[in-house]
C-alpha cells in the first residue's frame, strides 16, 4: 500500500457568487522515501493541492468527490481532532517565506518545540534535547544559541533551516516543501536542497517538493508532476519527462529555462560610453545609540568602477547584502550621499524594479501612470495619448489596456507596464533591479526577449541586476560579479562561466548548477 494516495481531489473557492475551481481531479501517490516534485506556474494550483494535503484548507473548499488517503486513513472525512494528530507529527510543511512564517515574538526554541508539546508527553528537558537535535539536523551552527534567539536575529537561510527543524522535530513520514528556496540566494538554495536530500536519506522522510524552478526539481526529485490551470498535464520519472516531454506545456516550460550551454553571438553594435562609475563608495548608518550620538557607518560599496556603453547589457551578479541595490539607487539618484563619481546620461537614467505588483500605484489607470512623466515635462494632452499608445505597442501590450487598473493585469503585463513607464522619458540607460525574478519562467523568457529587442531598437544601455546566473548568461554582454561591495571578477559571460578565476564566482556557478566546476 502506498503511504499517500490522492484521488480526484477537487478544490473550489466559494468567495464569490460563482464557485471558482482551482484544482481539478488531482491524483498522486507517494511511497515511503519518495521525492516527488510538483511544477507549474503561478495559478496552476500546486500550492493549493499541497495545503489541502496538510489539512490547511477549509473542508468547505473541497468537494467530497475526491479522497486523500494517508496510511490508509481518509483525511477528507476524518474528524478534525484526528487531522490535528497527524499535523506536525506525521505530515509537516515548510513554506516559501521563511521571513514571515515564524512567529516574530516567540523564541526559536519555543517554536521548534511546539509540535513536541502538542503531540508528545515529553518533559521540558527531553523537549529541549530533542529541539537541539532537530536544530543540529537542520545544520544550524550553534544550536544552543539559536534556541534562545528570535527570528529577526537570523538570516533568511537560517530561518528556513529553523522551519525545517520545527517540521522534522517529530520525525514526520512526509515533508511538504512549498517553494522553500524561492526567496533565498543561490548558495543558500543549494544548501537547503542538500539538506532535504540528507533528511530523505537519513530518515526515509518522503518529500513533496513544490517549485516553479525546473532545474531544482530536476536535481532533487525522483518523480515530477506538471500542473497547468489546476490540472495535472503530465507526470512520471523526472529524467524521462525532462528528456522526452510529451505535452506541449511541459515542452514550453522546459524550453523557457535559460540555458548556459548554447554559444552566444556577440552583440557588435556597442557604442560610446554613456555611464561611467568611478571609485564609488557608499555606506549606511546603523541605528543611533545615545540620544544625541550617531550610529556606526557600515560600508556597503567599497570602490566600484565600471563603464556602460550605448547598446550594452551589463549584468551585475551577487547575493543579498552584496550592495547591488545600493549601487542601483546611487546611479539613479535615489541615494545621494556617496563618494566617488557617477558621470554621464544626466537625468536620462530610469529604473525598473523587482516587484511589478507593488511598484505601480493601484488607484490609477495604466494611462495615468504612463502619462505622468510626460506631464512633468509639459507635453500636450493629445500628444501624451499618442505617445502612451505607441509605447504600449512597443512593449508588446494591447493599447486597450490603457484604461485598466494595475490589479486587472497579470504579473508579466505589469512588468511590461513598468518597463514602458521607465522608457516614457526616453532614457539612455535603464537600470533593471531583478526585473524577472518575481515572474514565472515562461513570462521571464518573454520579458528577457523584450529587453533584448528594446536595446536593439532604441540603442538602450541596460544595467541588469540579478542573482540568477542563467538569466544573466542569456541576456548580458558582459558580467560583473559583486561580493561584499567589491567587484571580484568581470568579463564576457561565455568566458567567465567556463573559466572562472575567483573562488566566489566558482562557488556561485556551482551552487546554481550552471556549470560543473571543480573548486
Amino acid at each position: 500500500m502506498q503511504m499517500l494516495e490522492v484521488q480526484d481531489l477537487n478544490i473550489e473557492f466559494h468567495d464569490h457568487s460563482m464557485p471558482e475551481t482551482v484544482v481539478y481531479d488531482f491524483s498522486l501517490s507517494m511511497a515511503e522515501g519518495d521525492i516527488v516534485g510538483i511544477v507549474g506556474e503561478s495559478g496552476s494550483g500546486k500550492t493549493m493541492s499541497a495545503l489541502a494535503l496538510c489539512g490547511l484548507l477549509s473542508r468547505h473548499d473541497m468537494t467530497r468527490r475526491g479522497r486523500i488517503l494517508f496510511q490508509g486513513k481518509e483525511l477528507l472525512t476524518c474528524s478534525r481532532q484526528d487531522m490535528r494528530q497527524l499535523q506536525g507529527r506525521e505530515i509537516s510543511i515548510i513554506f516559501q517565506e521563511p521571513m514571515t512564517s515564524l512567529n516574530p515574538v516567540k523564541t526559536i526554541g519555543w517554536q521548534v518545540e511546539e509540535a513536541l508539546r502538542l503531540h508528545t508527553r515529553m518533559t521540558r528537558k527531553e523537549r529541549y534535547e530533542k529541539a537541539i537535535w532537530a536544530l543540529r539536523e537542520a545544520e544550524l551552527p550553534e544550536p544552543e544559541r539559536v534556541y534562545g534567539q528570535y527570528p529577526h536575529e537570523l538570516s533568511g537561510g537560517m530561518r528556513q533551516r529553523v522551519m525545517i527543524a520545527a517540521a522534522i522535530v517529530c520525525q514526520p513520514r512526509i515533508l511538504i516543501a512549498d517553494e522553500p528556496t524561492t526567496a533565498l540566494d543561490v548558495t543558500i538554495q543549494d544548501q537547503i536542497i542538500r539538506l532535504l536530500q540528507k533528511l530523505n536519506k537519513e530518515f526515509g522522510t518522503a518529500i513533496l517538493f513544490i517549485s516553479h524552478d525546473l532545474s531544482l526539481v530536476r536535481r532533487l526529485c525522483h518523480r515530477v508532476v506538471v500542473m497547468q490551470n489546476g490540472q495535472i498535464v503530465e507526470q512520471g520519472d523526472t529524467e524521462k519527462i525532462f528528456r522526452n516531454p510529451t505535452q506541449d506545456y511541459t515542452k514550453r516550460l522546459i524550453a523557457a529555462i535559460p540555458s548556459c550551454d548554447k554559444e552566444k553571438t556577440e552583440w557588435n553594435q556597442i557604442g560610446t560610453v554613456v555611464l561611467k562609475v568611478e571609485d564609488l563608495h557608499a555606506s549606511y548608518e546603523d541605528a543611533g545609540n545615545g540620544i544625541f550620538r550617531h550610529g556606526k557607518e557600515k560600508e556597503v560599496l567599497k570602490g566600484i568602477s565600471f563603464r556602460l556603453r550605448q547598446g550594452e547589457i551589463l549584468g551585475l551578479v551577487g547575493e543579498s547584502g552584496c550592495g547591488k541595490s545600493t549601487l542601483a539607487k546611487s546611479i539613479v539618484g535615489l541615494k545621494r550621499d556617496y563618494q566617488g563619481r557617477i558621470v554621464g546620461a544626466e537625468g536620462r537614467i530610469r529604473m525598473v524594479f523587482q516587484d511589478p505588483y507593488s511598484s505601480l500605484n493601484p488607484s490609477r489607470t495604466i494611462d495615468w501612470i504612463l502619462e505622468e512623466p510626460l506631464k512633468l515635462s509639459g507635453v500636450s494632452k493629445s500628444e501624451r495619448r499618442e505617445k502612451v499608445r505607441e509605447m504600449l505597442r512597443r512593449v508588446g501590450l494591447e493599447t486597450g489596456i490603457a484604461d485598466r487598473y494595475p490589479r486587472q493585469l497579470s504579473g508579466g503585463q505589469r512588468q511590461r507596464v513598468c518597463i514602458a513607464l521607465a522608457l516614457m522619458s526616453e532614457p539612455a540607460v535603464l537600470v533593471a533591479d531583478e526585473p524577472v525574478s518575481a515572474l514565472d519562467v515562461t513570462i521571464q523568457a518573454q520579458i528577457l526577449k523584450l529587453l533584448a529587442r528594446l536595446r536593439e531598437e532604441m540603442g538602450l544601455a541596460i544595467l541588469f541586476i540579478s542573482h540568477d546566473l542563467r538569466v544573466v548568461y542569456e541576456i548580458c554582454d558582459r558580467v560583473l560579479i559583486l561580493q561584499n561591495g567589491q567587484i571580484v571578477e568581470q568579463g564576457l559571460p561565455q568566458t567567465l562561466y567556463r573559466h572562472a578565476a575567483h573562488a566566489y564566482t566558482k562557488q556561485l556557478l556551482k551552487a546554481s548548477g550552471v556549470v560543473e566546476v571543480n573548486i
Partner: protein
Amino acid sequence: MKYVGRKILTMLFTLLLVSFLVFLCFTVIPGDPAIARLGTDATPEAIEMLREEMGLNRPFLVRYADWLLSFARGNFGDSYSYSMSVADLLLDKVPITLAMSLMSIAMIVVISIPLGLYTARHEGSVIDKLIYALNQVIMAVPPFFSGILITLLFGIFLKLFTPGGYVSYTTDVTGFLGYLFFPSIAIALPKIAMTVKLLRSELIEEKKQDYARTAYSRGNHTGGVLYKHVLKNAMLPIITFLGMAFTDMIAGSIVVEQVFSIPGIGRILLTSISRRDYPVVMAVVVCLAAVVIVVNGVIDIIYQWIDPRIRLEGEKS
C-alpha cells in the same frame, strides 16, 4: 537596562519643557493674581505691595527657576483661594482620581480582551454581530451621559449606591471603592467598546499572517493559534491604545467627577480655574502632563518587553 535609562532621561527632558511652557502661559494670560486676591476695589498701592510680596515683579526667568526648584522639592506654593498649601490640597485629591482611573483600566482589560478574542474567533456569528452593533452604540455615548444613565439605573432604581453620597477613603475604603465603581463604569464603557473593536480587527488581521498558518500546520487548534501565537502580536497596538486611553480617561474624569459629585482632581481644577487660583491650576496641569509622560514611557517599556525586535534596537547601543 540602558534603554530604560535613556527613556527616563528623555521623559525628564520632556517634563522640563512642559513645565516651562505651562509657566510661560500662566505669565502671559491676562488677569493679575494680586487683583484676583484683593478684589477690583483695592487701591493701586495695596496691589503693588502684594505683587512685591508675591514676587511677581521679579524677572521672568528668575521666577521660573524659583518656581521650578520649589516644585521639585514638592512645594507647589499656596492656594490663593483655599487657605492651605497646594501640595496638601492635591495630596488629598490625587488618590481619588487615580483609583477611579485604575479601576476603569482594569475593567477595560478584564472585559475587552476576552470579548475581543471571542468575537475574533467566532467572526461573523450572531453574537459577533450583536457585539459589533452594541459597540457602535456604546462608543457614541459620552461618559457624562452614560454617567447620568448609570446614576438613574443603579443609583435610583436599583439603589446599589447613593447618588452624591461619596465616601472618603480615609473613613471607609470599601465604601469608597464601592462608590467609585459606578463612575468607573461610565469612564470605561466607550473605551471598552473601542478596545474590543480594535482587538478584534487586529486578531483577525494577525490570524491571516504566515506564522499563524505555520502554527496550524503543527496541529494547533484554533484556540491554540489565537492564544499562543496571535494574541501577543495583536496586543502591540492595543497597548499603545490603552496608554492613550489612560491619559484620556484622567482628563475625562473632570466631567464624570462633576456628574457623580466626587471631590477629585477634576473638580479642584474646575473650581480653581474659575477662581483664577493659578498655583493650583499650574500644579494640576504639570501633574497631568507628568502622568501622560510617565504612562507613555511605561507603554514604551512594556512594548519593548513584548516585542523582541524593539528590544534589539535598544540593546544594540
